[in-house]
């Protein structure tokens, strides 16, 4: 049977403090007027519970921006594969970002499996947090069907009137609830309140796009030659922000770093972006996506078309980060709507 517990709001700070004693806790922290970031916290007061999706998604903990994958000793020609990880708890993950983590899991457990990712993800405890209302106008989580929790967490918090109701999803979640004895069993009233909240949510969150979830793939499949890409290409400055902030962009580069002894060093994996000029360049100098328009198209295809073939899932989570971060005002909702409009 599904297990729900309740935490009084007045106990929230205590909960985070106790959790932080068990393990490093990271949670959304306010960075500026509309900017938030996941950072280490030790008290509940530091956490921004009402937050717009953070600048970078929690993917930064699952695939770090820079990660050593091998150590070498040149003189001895010795190579040691290594794994880097932190045992952490991420508190406050929205449903869009839970979906993002699920996408990354699919990619890195796909054969040939990525051991570094797989081991690291198992060292991370995930505590979700429900959005009871829209964060802002850029989100399209309802269109992507990610506005209601759909697994991918150990615990999931939903804010009720004077308490939080928490879905206990895993043994790890269970362990936290047991060790931090601030929780009580959810009663029928609590469950009813949650039920009502979800019903209300279904009224607030409505498909933000002009296209049905199931039809999105077809829109993109038929849009390779669309004029929309040209318009976007003219706006784009190829800064790469959209891919860095995307919870499901996972492209990387592999580089060597030599230590100052000129003998030992590391092979590292760093985030890369298909928006960069030379991302798809080959030795002869040809680039298969020289135009910015084609690079943007590629980014969208990687969200709405290609992964459906490969993983039966859209890789857009509806978090809205790419739109929020884009200086050139390339807006995901507008793009999708324009493509769909053109198809009609």
């Amino acid at each position, binding site marked *: 049977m599904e297990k729900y517990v309740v935490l009084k709001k007045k106990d929230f700070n205590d909960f985070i403090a106790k959790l932080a004693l068990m393990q490093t806790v990271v949670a959304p922290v306010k*960075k*500026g*007027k*509309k*900017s938030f*970031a996941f950072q280490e916290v030790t008290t509940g007061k530091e956490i921004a519970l009402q937050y717009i999706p*953070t*600048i*970078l998604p929690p993917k930064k903990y699952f695939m770090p*921006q820079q990660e050593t994958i091998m150590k070498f000793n040149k003189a001895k020609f010795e190579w040691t594969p290594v794994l880097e990880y932190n045992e952490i708890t991420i508190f406050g993950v929205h449903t869009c970002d839970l979906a993002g983590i699920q996408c990354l899991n699919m990619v890195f457990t796909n054969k040939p499996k990525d051991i570094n990712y797989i081991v690291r993800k198992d060292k991370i405890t995930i505590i979700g947090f429900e959005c009871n209302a829209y964060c802002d106008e850029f989100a399209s989580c309802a269109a992507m069907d990610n506005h209601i929790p759909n697994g991918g967490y150990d615990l999931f918090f939903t804010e009720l009137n004077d308490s939080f109701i928490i879905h206990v999803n895993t043994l790890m979640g269970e362990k936290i609830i047991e060790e931090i004895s601030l929780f009580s069993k959810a009663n029928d009233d609590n469950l009813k309140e949650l039920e009502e909240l979800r019903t209300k949510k279904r009224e607030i969150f409505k498909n933000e796009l002009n296209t049905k979830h199931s039809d999105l793939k077809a829109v993109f499949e038929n849009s390779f030659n669309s004029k929309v890409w040209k318009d976007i290409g*003219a*706006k*784009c*400055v*190829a*800064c*790469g*922000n959209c891919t*860095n*902030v995307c919870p499901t962009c996972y492209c990387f580069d592999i580089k060597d770093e*030599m230590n*100052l002894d*000129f003998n030992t060093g590391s092979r590292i994996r760093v*985030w890369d*972006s298909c928006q*960069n*000029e030379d991302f798809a360049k080959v030795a002869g100098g040809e680039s298969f996506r020289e135009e*910015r328009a084609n690079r943007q198209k590629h980014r969208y295809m990687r969200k709405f078309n290609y992964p459906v073939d490969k993983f039966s899932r859209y890789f857009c989570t509806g978090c809205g980060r790419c739109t929020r*971060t884009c*200086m*050139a*005002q390339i807006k995901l909702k507008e793009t999708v709507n324009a493509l769909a409009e053109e198809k009609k």
Partner: protein
Amino acid sequence: MKKVKVAFFDFTCCEGCQLQVANMGETLLDVLDLIDVVEFREVMSEKSSTYDVAIVEGSITTHHAIERIKKIRKTAKVLIAFGSCAAIGGINGMKNNFDLTDIREYVYQKDAKHFDTIPTRAVHQVVPVDYFVPGCPVYIPEFVKVLKSALMGIAYNVPDNAVCVECKLNENECMYDKGIACMGPVTRAGCNSWCINNGNICYGCRGIVSNPAEKGQKDIMEKYNISLEWIENKINMYNKPRELGELKTNE
């Protein structure tokens, strides 16, 4: 490994980049295990007529400087343009906004005729340069990377994407969201968005990206209500000498 002889030279500059080297701390000790510094006015009085690597700070602003940098180029196997002044012309390039005679008189008044001056140039606009370390001042982790590349004999390319990329990875609140204009979108990365991490804007000290998407940039300027003149002035603060074009040898 035989120690490589390295000499530091300064032309028109504030010597702040060399000061960065003196301030490197422990990394400097590691670096000194590999190289033999034979000339470095900022920290020692010895001079040397032979060296493998010349690290040149400052821009070229007089006829005498042209002769001197040519000599250095002849002696050095590897020449590193060190800091914005050397790599892109830098602050000294602002002089190029004015008539040369006027600006000379404005600065030196009645003694003007005793001071030789030419339009400010980056080092590579006078002699070939092997490595560039732009930055005002240089970002030491990048300098170490360049030094390693030079000692390994492999190329180092200054990143050709915008500072925004690194800034985003550092999760800074965007200056534009705070209502402040910033040069990050057109400036070459490689500094780990050092200035913005510390609450400052990007001044464009690392040079302009090679393909800055004019139409897109104009839209952005319009969106944030920034005038073309403002952005030109900001670009020219560090990057004016780029208008002089590439290498000129016939002077």
